[in-house]
């Protein structure tokens, strides 16, 4: 499967393997990391960003592609929609069918609320399903939530909101316990001890996993529970704008049936935005590890209604996306591959960095190796770096790869690459939005009554970079909290008459800022169809 050039380079990787195995590469100093990030991380490429012209974050920078969506028109600006004809009338409306949305719905239901979920694809078509490596929680003797806090705070460049990060780490053990009680099959030894490993930037081995189907195992369990509880899930239906009432409270959403094109109205006393990430916007032309629907819809509709963003200019590029073959370009190669011992190696067979630096540092280092240092491996699409997977079998014994990372083995075997015997080629892929809508500790948007946000759509939990395994954790912790809080709040809310006045107001702002556009947002689905004419 590999080209002749690649095979020549593999020879060099093999020649240095034994020696590399005996020497752990050193970690970078704080100064080295800072210089590397400034020079090579995509967040520092000025041409990748524009200035926001309207709304609460006016004047700040944002990725070009997301900025374009904020500067677009509402899909229903000129539609006549009868807001008195209410199709769904509920206590809690959860927008999004991933891990955060499902956790929120389960907890809202358990708290006695009348809750429904709406999702533009199916429940479970979400980044949660694709998370491979694991979920963090400080539940071992040598670890503590405080240590977890320190790792995450430092890894996120000391920018996380302390009250959010505190919840993340303090409620982590309970989140694992909750999942375990729902029947998630964590990797355990025969005594019941969780099998835990390192992730990039962790100081303790606290990565819990379900082989390399961690997110899938969590998601399919949550989905099963949502269905067991009889929570209505309206699929293939997008929320396209939030509704407000005459008191200015958030009061539901306008929905679009993705198949028929019909609009309908969901009235709700509280709304949870759990719409996930933005990988399918392909910032700076990066491929993505995200699912088909990751187009930042919740950010756009929340912002239009007046909810501020936080850290919208910081994006996570996962260091190891598949670089070859083309069919799986950009697909996630879990960090767990490095947790299990595989090193990052350049075309000359050199381990140019410690394999478990934080993700932003690792991604920047790989980009530097392939550009300034000229030691990348050519692929038909671009460049790549070797991830020396045969080391895993040498370190952990034969069969480790099949047992611990079967999805990875299967993905490459599909294209006749046996990662047990040959290294694989990787390059950074657009993976996660570190920023999102700003919330308080209870999950509410301060500027708008009755609106909550959970999961990847939130900004501030992780700061300006996120550690592996803290996102699967945050969707559970903040999803559950949002569900409980939304149910409780719904009991206190009385709604007035519905309106969409904020769309008109936003339009006026765009005009005043002299933004002219024929585009509409939210995007809903990426435009991948090729049309010859």
């Amino acid at each position, binding site marked *: 499967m590999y080209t002749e050039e690649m095979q020549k380079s593999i020879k060099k990787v093999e020649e240095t393997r034994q020696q590399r195995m005996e020497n752990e590469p050193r970690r970078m100093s704080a100064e080295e990391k800072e210089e590397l990030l400034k020079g090579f991380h995509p967040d520092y490429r000025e041409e990748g960003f524009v200035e926001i012209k309207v709304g609460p974050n006016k004047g700040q920078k944002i990725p070009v592609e997301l900025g374009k969506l904020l500067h677009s028109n509402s899909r229903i600006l000129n539609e006549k929609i009868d807001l008195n004809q209410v199709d769904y009338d509920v206590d809690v409306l959860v927008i999004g069918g991933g891990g955060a949305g499902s956790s929120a719905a389960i907890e809202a239901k358990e708290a006695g609320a009348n809750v429904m979920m709406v999702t533009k694809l199916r429940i479970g078509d979400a980044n949660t399903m694709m998370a491979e490596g694991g979920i963090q*929680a400080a539940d071992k003797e040598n670890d503590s939530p405080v240590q977890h806090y320190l790792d995450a705070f430092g890894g996120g460049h000391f920018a996380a909101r302390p009250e959010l990060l505190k919840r993340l780490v303090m409620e982590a053990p309970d989140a694992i316990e909750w999942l375990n009680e729902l029947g998630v099959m964590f990797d355990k030894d025969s005594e019941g001890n969780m099998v835990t490993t390192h992730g990039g930037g962790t100081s303790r081995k606290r990565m819990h996993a379900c082989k390399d189907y961690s997110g899938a195992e969590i998601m399919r369990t949550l989905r099963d529970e949502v269905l067991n509880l009889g929570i209505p899930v309206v699929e293939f239906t997008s929320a396209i704008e939030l509704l407000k009432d005459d008191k200015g409270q958030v009061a539901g959403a306008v929905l679009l049936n993705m198949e028929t094109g019909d609009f309908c109205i969901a009235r709700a006393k509280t709304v949870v935005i759990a719409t996930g990430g933005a990988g399918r916007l392909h910032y700076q032309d990066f491929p993505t590890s995200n699912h088909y629907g990751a187009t930042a819809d919740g950010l756009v509709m929340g912002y239009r209604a007046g909810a501020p963003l936080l850290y919208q200019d910081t994006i996570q590029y996962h260091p190891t996306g598949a670089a070859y073959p083309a069919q799986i370009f950009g697909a996630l190669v879990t960090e767990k591959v490095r947790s299990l011992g595989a090193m990052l190696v350049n075309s000359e067979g050199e381990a140019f960095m410690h394999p478990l630096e934080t993700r932003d540092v690792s991604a920047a280092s790989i980009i530097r190796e392939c550009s300034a240092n000229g030691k990348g491996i050519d692929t038909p699409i671009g460049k790549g770096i070797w991830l020396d997977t045969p080391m895993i079998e040498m370190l952990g014994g034969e069969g480790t790869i099949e047992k611990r990372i079967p999805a990875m083995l299967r993905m490459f075997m599909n294209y006749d690459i046996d990662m047990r015997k040959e290294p694989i080629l990787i390059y950074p892929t657009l993976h996660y939005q570190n920023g999102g809508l700003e919330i308080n500790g209870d999950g509410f948007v301060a500027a708008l009554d009755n609106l909550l946000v959970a999961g990847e759509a939130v900004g501030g939990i992780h700061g300006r970079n996120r550690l592996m395994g803290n996102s699967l954790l945050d969707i559970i912790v903040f999803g559950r909290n949002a569900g409980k809080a939304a149910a409780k709040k719904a009991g206190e809310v009385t709604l007035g008459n519905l309106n969409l006045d904020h769309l008109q107001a936003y339009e006026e702002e765009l005009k005043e800022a002299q933004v002219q556009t024929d585009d509409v947002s939210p995007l809903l689905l990426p435009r991948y169809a090729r049309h010859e004419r």
Partner: protein
Amino acid sequence: MQEMVNVYFYGKKYSVPADLTIMTAMEYSGYTLNRGCGCRHGFCGACATIYRVKGKNELKTCLACQTQVEEGMYVASIPFFPTDKRTYDIEKIKPTEQIMMELYPEIYSCIGCNACTKACTQDLDVMQYIAYAQRGEFEKCAEASFDCVGCGCCSTRCPAGISHPMVGVLARRLTGKYIAPESEHLKKRVEEVIHGEFDSLIEQIMEKPITEMKELYNSREIEK
């Protein structure tokens, strides 16, 4: 010149680059996918697809996002399949043989044709995991079905009308909750947090100035 192949989507012919997957070939041909497309990386099972290569008898199943096109492929996606999930209260059921009998009695009508296994897009031994479920061997069923993405191709081919992925989910939840050994260290830590053992420590670290946090972070000891 790019190598091209002819494929047929729902019987209509398109010429597409040979290195595309079925999914990207459909998009290349102008389709906007509303259904039949989810994670695009082989984890969600949204893109269950059935095809036959012209001139060959065998009917094949696959995930559109994980399968490269080939010459003469006649392709139909399966945008939805009515698998039958039974509902239950996970707190009330127990991992006994009877539970399968109650919730999924049709598994005992398996005729052993092995069509499910042949249809599996993940190369799982589906018929075997159903056999484990029949015998109440939930742990084995859970392990053998673990890599299931729930595409439902197995169920489309089953003459007994079994919803295999749902049986796998039940077995895994029973295993995770009731059969796998309990994690004492987890229970202990949850108790410690509830009893406030970390409250003052976490408040302290939250209030530290950034300079001190940087020092703590950069000098922290990393477990080998």
